[in-house]
């Protein structure tokens, strides 16, 4: 029997796992996909919000502001890129000024630091591509951008190094209460644990409702995004929001931590919790609405589009607590935006709840620091040449768009919880994430994966499951 089973290896589950790995406990993470970061965590705005959006006093507001504070030190410990680039919420009509002021006031009440309302001239001086019809903007310097994949992967890797077990391709089918603890039945074996953390994203309602009579309900709210070439990456320097409406924060325009430009998301409630398909209508809306905030967005430079699902709970707030009628069952549910920002705080809170409940003791040796994949492009010439002499794979470029070497790809596969698929390699190294969208490098990456994992090329997948890439050999059906 495990002390704790965490269901879901997205940012919430991984953050909880990492925080709990500070303590003496047998912990296992169950993930239905083949890798971490495969649900909501992989398809979102990649923003670290300042914290003025959520209603004062809500858990979202608390977690957001705390998560924002923790993100800097966490990014340093985990060796992941994070920049406080700041954000602007644009007010386009004088009559909306009270709403902008209200947002500022809410930010102050939530504990957001250093915000200012900027007049038109100052907005346009800071961001010349903001629409000319702007009349003022709320500036929040503590907002930032981060790589959601690296954050999620680094949290999980660090948890793994500190002793947390991860089981992939393991979907929870049922949970049965035992006298002490829970029995978790999956499509890949049955497990027992004293306590359970439910971090199942859009499925957190289904998991919760397996053990509790007090039902919760999560709606999958789909958002379409377009990602633009790095040539367009400096179109804006900060995250640009429209004034929020009732369905979320509207369409934003933001640089990404790796230098692309990202626009989106839409907000459409869908019944199917796997419906991550973009739609023509959604993509059109993204393009149209983004241009209301920012002018001259070079839409010809779109390199890919994608959709993500936010886990919207009917109560419109995060649920992070022990279920009222299920002792030792901790929910981490309704984690929609600002979930990515909040994850360090969510991890902290979950760990605190379980620590208090189970009387967990701190480990003697907890490794807080994780070293990321070495990116030779970030080294100086001598360091880079030394690295290539030591391991010539760092001298061979595989992904020419992002200039990713074979050495980085091998590292991504061999490290703890390493990549097993093309998408796994892509999220860890960016190989295939550039302007040719893996056209040139995918055959090479497939060969490296097959060699490193000892697999047949026919078993190499895009993202696990049935996503095989090649179907056979030439003429094999003739």
């Amino acid at each position, binding site marked *: 029997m495990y002390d704790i089973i965490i269901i879901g290896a997205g940012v919430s589950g991984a953050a909880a796992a990492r925080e709990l790995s500070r303590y003496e406990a047998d912990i296992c993470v169950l993930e239905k996909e083949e890798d971490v970061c495969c649900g909501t965590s992989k398809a979102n705005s990649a923003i670290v919000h300042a914290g003025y959006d959520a209603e004062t006093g809500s858990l979202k507001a608390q977690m957001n502001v705390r998560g924002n504070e923790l993100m800097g030190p966490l990014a340093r410990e985990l060796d992941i890129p994070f920049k406080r680039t700041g954000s602007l919420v644009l007010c386009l009509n004088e009559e909306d000024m009270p709403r902008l002021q209200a947002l500022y006031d809410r930010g102050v009440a939530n504990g957001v630091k250093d915000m200012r309302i900027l007049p038109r001239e100052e907005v346009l001086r800071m961001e010349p591509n903001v629409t000319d019809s702007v009349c003022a903007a709320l500036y929040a310097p503590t907002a930032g951008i981060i790589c959601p994949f690296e954050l999620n992967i680094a949290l999980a890797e660090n948890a793994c190094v500190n002793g947390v077990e991860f089981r992939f391709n393991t979907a929870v089918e049922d949970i049965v209460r035992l006298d002490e603890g829970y029995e978790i039945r999956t499509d890949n074996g049955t497990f027992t644990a004293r306590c359970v953390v439910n971090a199942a994203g859009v499925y957190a309602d289904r998991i919760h409702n397996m053990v509790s009579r007090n039902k919760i309900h999560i709606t999958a709210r789909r958002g379409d995004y377009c990602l633009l070439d790095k040539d367009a990456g400096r179109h804006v320097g900060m995250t640009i929001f429209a004034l929020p409406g009732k369905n979320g924060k509207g369409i934003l325009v933001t640089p990404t931590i790796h230098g692309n430009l990202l626009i989106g998301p839409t907000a459409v409630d869908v019944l199917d919790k796997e419906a991550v*398909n973009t739609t023509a209508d959604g993509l059109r809306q993204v393009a149209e609405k983004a241009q209301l905030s920012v002018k001259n967005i070079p839409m010809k430079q779109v390199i890919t589009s994608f959709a993500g699902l936010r886990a919207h709970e009917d109560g419109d707030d995060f649920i992070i607590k022990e279920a009222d009628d299920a002792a030792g069952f901790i929910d981490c549910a309704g984690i929609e935006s600002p979930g990515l920002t909040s994850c360090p705080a969510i991890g902290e809170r979950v760990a605190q709840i379980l620590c208090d409940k189970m009387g967990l003791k701190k480990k003697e040796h907890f490794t807080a620091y994780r070293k990321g994949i070495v990116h030779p492009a970030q080294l100086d010439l001598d360091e880079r040449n030394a690295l*290539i*002499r030591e391991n010539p794979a760092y*001298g061979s470029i595989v992904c*020419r768009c992002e200039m990713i070497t074979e050495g980085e790809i091998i590292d991504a596969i061999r490290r703890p919880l390493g990549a097993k698929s093309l998408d796994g390699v892509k999220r860890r190294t960016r190989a295939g994430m550039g302007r*040719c*969208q893996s056209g040139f490098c995918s055959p090479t990456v497939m060969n490296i994966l097959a060699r490193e994992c000892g697999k047949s090329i026919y078993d190499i997948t895009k993202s696990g499951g049935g996503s095989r890439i090649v179907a056979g050999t030439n003429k094999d059906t003739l």
Partner: protein
Amino acid sequence: MREYDIVIIGGGPAGLAAAVSARENGIESILILERDDRLGGILNQCIHNGFGLHTFQEELTGPEYADRYIRQAKQLEIEYKLNTMVMDIRPDRTVTAMNKTDGVFTIRAGAVILAMGCRERARGALNIPGYRPAGIFSAGTAQRLVNIEGYMPGREVVILGSGDIGLIMARRMTLEGAHVKAVAELMPYSGGLKRNIVQCLDDYGIPLKLSHTVVDIKGRERVEGVTLAEVDQNSKPIPGTEEDYPCDTLLLSVGLIPENELSRGMGAVMDPATSGPKVNESLETSIDGVFACGNVLHVHDLVDHVSKEAAAAGRNAAAYVKGSRTVKNGGGKAILLTAASGVRYTVPSTVRPEQMEDSLTVRFRVDNVYRGRCISVYFDQERVSRRKRPVMAPGEMEEIVLTKEQILGCPELETIRITVEDE
């Protein structure tokens, strides 16, 4: 720092022909830097025939065509480095490159010839909605999998885009045992060569659906089907025309873009119409001593044209290195070459009469399918030539030849205009 008279970026057909030509024009110290593990570039995966009709008056496969130039380069003992990625070129022609054995190294070049080729546009370029499963390949990636690696990307195939690679892959996939259900083309005409439509689609009964596009991709793990719809004159899908095609593979052949990261990085002035650098009559970019040829300059239809253009770049770079040119870059009067009605672009975009060779081939593409029209050349207001063309299409490159004599005969000439006109 090592020094070479000419450093050529890319060992595909353009780089090879430029190298051979530079050597034949008296340059001893030449280095080709090639990122792949062999010379020949993308020709290595083009195992179909049809190459070399102009250059060698015979039909060769891509590897055979490449081999002719590789042999010449080897005979001429031209130096080359494989598996070597050029990372950066400075405007002073310092080239930084990297490979496994040399690490990161820099070279000073007397002249640089850019011959990096082009890449395929990805799904995002058309912003095709739907899921993002396995089974969506660019036609060139599929070609590499099949022709180099020997793997079938799928069994039931729909192809979007009727560019030449898409057409060639429709035939290849069929010959290797796949079922190609349709080739959809957004435009009302094909972007590929006429002969490819006949030999790759018609001969195998593969339907070409003009004015159609993919409006949905189904399948979460692997492609399960795509939806095609007809589009109106503004390329917008017409509701009610959707048709589902069950398939496991979607190949995209939706255009090629010159790969000019290095050119832009060094600050070369670019031509938005070609996505390549702007060049003068010597195929020299806005940066002194930096020349460009082949698909990095503008996307070509036939490799024969690439070889010819690259040979000119090699000659001009040789003259630059030897200091035998009449005028230095930026010097001398420059006449503007402009693409007027019906013409998308011209390469080159300026001509310096003093510097030009006895004749200059100007290459361009038209912007639509034209039947029974003429290509006219104007020297300022005066029409100096007019040639009837029974059919012109965007998929096929056009050219005109200007002579030095003709241009020197007009000392006041400022602009040369090329246009498509009625008879």
